[in-house]
């Protein structure tokens, strides 16, 4: 609307200027010199600003007039030309502005003017545009840097999130391991406790064994002294038996002589004939008695032989028993020593098991504390993960925003 204004004004001027001659022409047909003026003016009014009053057509009187009018026309034409140029420059500037507003293209502002009146205005515009350009350049640069930074932030945030997740997993795993460790230490403590109990029982048993071995050794000594007494008794018995043998020999001898005496008595009786008959019978009876005694002594001798063999065997057995009890005593001593060793070992085992029990209990307590701490750390890590997720989300958003800003800024062409 306002754009037409500069064109309209000259037109109306032209019309008003043209009106006057038209009125003049319509009023009366001008004479020939005037007609040149009129035609020229009509031509000018028609748009041909180059039209001039030809001097040859005007008469002598009109030369001055024509010259003046031509000067006016010249001025008018130059004025019109200036107006036209200004309008063009203004159009150009407006185009540039429109393009700037529509497309953000600041690069196309290179409008110049010779018009001194328009000069400051365009110059002002130019400065504003230049300032805008600088802004756009800086904003563009800032947007680029922002985008890059946002990307970096996003990358860092993502990495942080990843490592935070990994950390959470590791912490979880550590907690599980610590739980297992806790269970294991509890198991160890329990086992150590039962080891201590078993060691205690073994200690009791070994003590009982020591007592039993002491009694065993005493019994062995008793057996040995008894065996010595038995051997003595056997020796005495052997002597008595030998004595009995001697006595039996005497009896045997007496019986044998009795036998002979009775036999000879019987012979004497036989020689006495019928008178010695009874005597012979008695003698035969005596002889039978003597034979009985001999039989008995023979039996006794056999018994003595058996007894001798038996006592010899008993003496051998007593000797063997003595040897056996001696070795039994030695073995008992060795066993006692071994049991002492067992006692010492079991005592050590018991102490060690107790220490292990104590240590594992402490370990369990420590492990429980570690588990509690790990739970707290896990909690914190979870929060951290949450936060880093949020940070990642924000960073992503920021990256998007930065990209969008860069996109927007791209629409302004600064160069």
């Amino acid at each position, binding site marked *: 609307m306002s754009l037409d204004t500069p064109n309209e004004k000259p037109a109306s001027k032209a019309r008003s200027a043209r009106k006057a001659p038209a009125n003049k022409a319509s009023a009366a047909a001008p004479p020939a010199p005037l007609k040149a003026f009129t035609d020229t003016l009509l031509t000018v009014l028609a748009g041909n600003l180059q039209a001039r009053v030809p001097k040859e057509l005007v008469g002598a009187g009109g030369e001055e007039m024509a010259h003046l009018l031509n000067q006016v026309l010249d001025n008018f034409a130059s004025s019109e030309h200036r107006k036209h140029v200004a309008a063009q420059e203004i159009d150009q500037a407006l185009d540039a502005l429109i393009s700037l507003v529509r497309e953000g293209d600041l690069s196309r502002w290179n409008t110049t003017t010779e018009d001194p009146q328009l000069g400051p205005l365009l110059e002002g515009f130019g400065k504003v545009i230049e300032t805008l350009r600088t802004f756009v350049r800086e904003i563009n640069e800032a947007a680029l840097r922002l985008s890059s930074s946002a990307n970096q932030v996003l990358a860092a945030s993502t990495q942080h999130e990843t490592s935070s997740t990994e950390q959470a997993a590791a912490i979880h795993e550590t907690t599980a391991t610590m739980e297992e460790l806790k269970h294991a230490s509890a198991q160890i403590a329990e086992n150590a406790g039962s080891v201590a109990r078993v060691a205690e029982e073994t200690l009791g048993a070994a003590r009982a064994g020591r007592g039993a071995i002491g009694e065993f050794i005493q019994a062995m000594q008793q057996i040995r002294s008894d065996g010595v007494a038995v051997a003595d008794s056997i020796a005495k018995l052997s002597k008595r038996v030998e004595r009995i043998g001697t006595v039996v020999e005497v009896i045997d001898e007496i019986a*044998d002589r009795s036998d*002979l005496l009775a*036999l*000879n008595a*019987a*012979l004497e009786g*036989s020689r006495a004939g019928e008178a010695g*008959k009874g005597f012979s*019978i008695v003698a*035969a009876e005596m002889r039978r008695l003597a034979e009985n005694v001999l039989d008995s002594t023979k039996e006794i001798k056999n018994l003595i032989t058996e007894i001798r063999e038996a006592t010899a065997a008993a003496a051998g057995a007593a000797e063997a028993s003595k040897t056996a009890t001696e070795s039994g005593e030695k073995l008992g001593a060795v066993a006692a020593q071994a049991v002492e060793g067992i006692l010492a070992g079991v005592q050590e085992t018991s102490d060690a098991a107790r220490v292990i029990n104590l240590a594992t209990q402490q370990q369990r307590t420590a492990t429980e504390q570690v588990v509690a701490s790990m739970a707290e750390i896990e909690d914190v890590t979870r929060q951290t993960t949450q936060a880093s997720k949020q940070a990642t989300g924000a960073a992503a958003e920021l990256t998007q925003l930065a990209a969008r800003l860069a996109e927007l800024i791209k629409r302004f062409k600064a160069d």
Partner: protein
Amino acid sequence: MAPDRAVAAQARPEQEFFCFRVGDLRFGVPSENVLEVFRAGLLTPLPRTPSFIMGVTGHRGEVLPVVDLLRFLSKGEARIGPRTRLFIGVTGSIVAGVVADTVLGLRRIPVSEILPPPLGGDSAAEHLLGVVQGSTAQDGINLLNFHKLLQTARQRAVAR
């Protein structure tokens, strides 16, 4: 002794024998030929005598030749131990000691039970009066003709 007494009560004729054992053989000698029995003591061997003369021994101040019946009858050899007996046999003027391992005793044997010695027997049979059967073959007793035996022995001893 009850059987002896019972035998004596009967009127059947019987003879008393001095019975003994040498080696595995049992002999009987009529009791009137036996003077005494004693333990065989130390024997002194005699040179230049038959082998059945084991030697001589002293008894009650007399020197007696000692005869081994087993050797004399060719039935083996007698051994003298601590319990070996010698009995003094006498017949006529001949007195000799005879070796006996064990004296069985004086036995009265009914004459009717005495069996003649087995015919066709060995040289021992000529010195036998007869045989008395025992409950077993071992218990059988050879009754010696002691008079003939000692005479033969003296003849043999002197003949050398």
